[in-house]
């Protein structure tokens, strides 16, 4: 009975559920590689041992315990698994685009562990992605942080157990186009977007206070008050106000970035990551001061009006201003070469190797609240590791093997033509012609723009 109102408990139930449903953990010793640890420099001719899914040793001349496979990485580069802070792979649905606020929906309900996009991401060295709700709504749905444990049909197997909750917000043209132009509702303008968020926050605050008051009073004698009607949407927004959820906000323009930080200050919300944020370079000191973070493209812009004022120096400017910055894909294609995307910050902004690699490892881990678990090669962290043939920032870099929790899910030497987990008997055999979608941020909104 008590769990009825506690979405927190509901989520901890998932947690227990996924822990009890043990995912596979592996053991492996990778010898003599050049270890790019991200937090502790580059170590040449060094071994890394993974036991039961965790890094248990880093050093010279480690020996493999009996039964543990050894991989010779002489002349190769070993780095932590790449993390993509903005992706829509492995999802059966991306947008619940029918309402400007859909905080209650959760991409974790729409996971598709059989999406071949996971395997493609592994082939690009990506071990974790942030499977996000789309950008159709001012407050979109909650996201899922997933581990790329390929080959399973179980949704629970790809959830990253223990990862904090995150939620998608969206500013600017997408929500105003969908709801303002599409349905004739607020928000029709950027002012409206702000108003939708403020209203949602204040309604949730009232709801939360009324609920707390009821909880406090209900045991008192002669209390005759009525419980506020359960509202799953307000429950989630209230959790944002409580600081239980990291907000990831789709944004482009500097003015809307400042706007959202002002709104958050008014409500005391602190956990904030700006997604895309093409104009973030204009307000980098302000973002740093707020303590917000930014997840950007290396050099992708001009695909709609609000994304014209952009620069490939964005990431470097943000980094130099002390903003925790990552480079993301938002694409089933770009996710395959995020290491190239990171390398672009060396051409545009002269970031160091370490800074550039942080953009796709430790920094996205911080943005997802999982940096205590992943994002660098350190003893005690998860055994999520990629082996490259060359330095990952080299244009000749090609991932050779990708491990998640010490289990090898990709090996370029064992790369089968047909990796589908399930085969649909009704599907035509000509799989080569299957279309792949690149940008899925606005998936499930197409119907709004069809001519009647």
């Amino acid at each position: 009975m008590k769990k009825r109102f506690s979405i927190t408990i509901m989520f901890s139930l998932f947690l227990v559920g996924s822990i009890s449903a043990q995912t596979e953990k592996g053991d492996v010793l990778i010898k003599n590689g050049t270890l790019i640890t991200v937090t502790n420099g580059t170590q040449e001719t060094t071994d890394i041992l993974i036991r039961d899914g965790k890094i248990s040793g880093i050093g010279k001349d480690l020996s493999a315990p009996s039964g543990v496979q050894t991989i010779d990485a002489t002349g190769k580069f070993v780095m932590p698994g790449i993390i993509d802070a903005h992706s829509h792979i492995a999802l059966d649905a991306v947008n619940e685009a029918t309402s400007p606020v859909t905080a209650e929906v959760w991409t974790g309900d729409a996971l598709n562990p059989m999406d071949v996009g996971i395997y493609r991401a592994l082939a690009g060295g990506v071990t974790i992605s942030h499977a996000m709700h789309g950008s159709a709504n001012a407050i979109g749905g909650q996201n899922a942080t997933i581990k790329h444990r390929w080959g399973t049909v179980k949704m629970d197997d790809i959830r990253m157990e223990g990862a904090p909750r995150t939620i998608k917000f969206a500013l600017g043209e997408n929500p105003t186009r969908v709801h303002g132009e599409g349905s004739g509702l607020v928000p029709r303008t950027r002012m409206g977007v702000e108003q939708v968020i403020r209203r949602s926050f204040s309604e949730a605050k009232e709801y939360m206070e009324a609920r707390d008051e009821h909880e406090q009073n209900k045991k008192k004698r002669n209390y005759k008050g009525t419980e506020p009607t359960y509202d799953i949407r307000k429950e989630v927004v209230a959790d944002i106000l409580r600081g239980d959820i990291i907000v990831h906000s789709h944004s482009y323009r500097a003015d809307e970035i400042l706007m959202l930080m002002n709104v958050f200050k008014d409500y005391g919300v602190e956990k904030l990551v700006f997604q895309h944020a093409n104009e973030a370079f204009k307000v980098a000191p302000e973002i740093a001061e707020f303590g917000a973070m930014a997840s950007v493209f290396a050099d992708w812009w001009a695909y709609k009006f609000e994304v014209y004022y952009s620069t490939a120096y964005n990431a470097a400017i943000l980094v130099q201003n002390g903003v925790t910055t990552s480079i993301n894909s938002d694409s089933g294609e770009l996710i395959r070469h995020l290491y190239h995307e990171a390398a672009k910050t060396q051409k545009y902004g002269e970031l160091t190797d370490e800074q550039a690699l942080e953009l796709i490892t430790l920094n996205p881990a911080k943005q997802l609240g999982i940096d205590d678990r992943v994002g660098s090669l350190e003893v005690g962290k998860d055994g999520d590791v990629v082996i490259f043939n060359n330095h990952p920032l080299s244009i000749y870099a090609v991932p050779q093997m990708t491990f998640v929790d010490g289990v090898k899910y990709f090996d370029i030497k064992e790369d089968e033509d047909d990796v589908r987990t399930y085969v649909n008997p009704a599907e035509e055999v000509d799989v080569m012609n299957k279309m792949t979608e690149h940008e899925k941020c606005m998936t499930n909104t197409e119907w709004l723009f069809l001519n009647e």
Partner: protein
Amino acid sequence: MKKIIWTFLFVFLVLGPIKAQDDQLAPVTGTIAVTNVNIVPSPGELIENGTVLVKDGLITAVGNNVTVPPGARIIEADSMYLYSGFILGMSNIGIKMPEQKDRPDIKDPGNPPNDQAGITPDRAVNEYLDPGHRSISDWRAAGFTLAQTAPSGGMLPGTAAVILLKGKSIEDMILKPGTALYATFDGARRMYPSNILGVMAKHRDLFRQAEQSRSSRQTYMDDPSGRTRPNYSKVREAYLPVLEKQIPFIFNTEEVLSAQRAMLLQEDLGFDLVLAELKQGWDISSDISETNTKVLFSLDLPELKDKDKEKDTVKDETPTAEKQLLESRREEFTKKHYQQMGQYASANVPFGFSGVEGKPADVQKAVQKMVEHGLSQEAALTALTTTPASMLGISNISGTVESGKMANLVISSKPYFEKDAKVRYVMVEGMVYENEEKEAKESDPETLEKVTGSWSYTADTPDGPITGDMVLEESGGVLSGTITNSLTGEETTLQDLVFADDNLSFSFDVIIQGQTMNVLAVLTVSEDELEGTFSGAGEAYSVKGTRSPNQ
């Protein structure tokens, strides 16, 4: 002995073609004896050359030493096999949903009225049951005597009931109302919840609101003085028996991911769960047994390729190694659909069948293929009789051939699971229905000329008209055809084409945003025009068409 057979043949040959396909014999007497028949009283048992005596809708005696009272109607079922009538765990049998007229203009798609958003758990079977519905006689002809059925359409289409597949009135047919709450993951079109994201959240929201409502009403009833009266809601009211765990939630879950989503909701909310129409269950049997979930497998399974026929079609060129590999994987996965029942039976995970998608005429073949792929005949019969009976809480009424139980029987020309076995008689609560041998499907080419050719059609939907072309062809007395539609622009093949007495019916698939919707067309043809309905996903639209001028 021979005489009897000749009489039989005479009846079939001479009288057969005049009769309707599935005939109800007028009850002259309330007492019926099925004699000299091999009785399978329950799965795994056999009484050879026995007699089953039925009186006033009940089985009164079963065995070898049954005295047939004078005046009883005798069905001489020599060498035939008699089973308890089959029970379908879930279906939309007999349900006729109203035609969707113009959809009211939804001002705020984020907050539509429940009935527009597919949230109608309060809809009951008796409101939509049509005793003359063809599905009733079709499923009965396949051996089914009882079925759970529910309204269709939306994420919460309504409350299910167990019905008898006989009767002239709703009152005759309903055995047990309010047996389950039926749920799907279908989104509402162009309004909240529009897809799996919103539907999952809405299921949680509604369930928790219903729980809250139940407790606040209890508080009010216990001590109303000074309290605000809680409002009544028909939606929340419909949840009550589920909250009390008196009835389960039945989720329509064809795919392995849908099944997991239903179990995810079960884990969050805590209700008794039945997975209906399951097609991909082979990887989740342990989750199912751990969560005490009940399973109803779909009878609409992918076609297993007939090896002999394949040889004829693939003679032109040798397929490449890659294509062979892809084909072999496809075959492997097709087979899994038939092998999983055997796996479940070996793991002692009980299951029955549902008929939301499947066609009654294909059931026997599908079950025989399951048996070919490792399901024992005994387990197959269990899934058709005793398991669904116990799932529906009617084990004491039906499911076995026992004295005192309802006279629901299936009589098959040979053991049901043997090739060429035909269901000859079906008895529902003592009412005997006889299946005649089916005529060959071939029709007179001259009759078919009335429909062959090109047609253009317009279907009126609440979202505006959908138009397209149909092309029908006749070859060797068999109809085939294709259809296009302006919604997806795709051309699809027509299935189950039947044309008789100016009535044309067929079905086809439309794939909208990755979801396959099966549309059933029922049309009447007159000269160069046709008229009728398209129905699918719980909605029906009126259709008109004209013959395209010859070019």
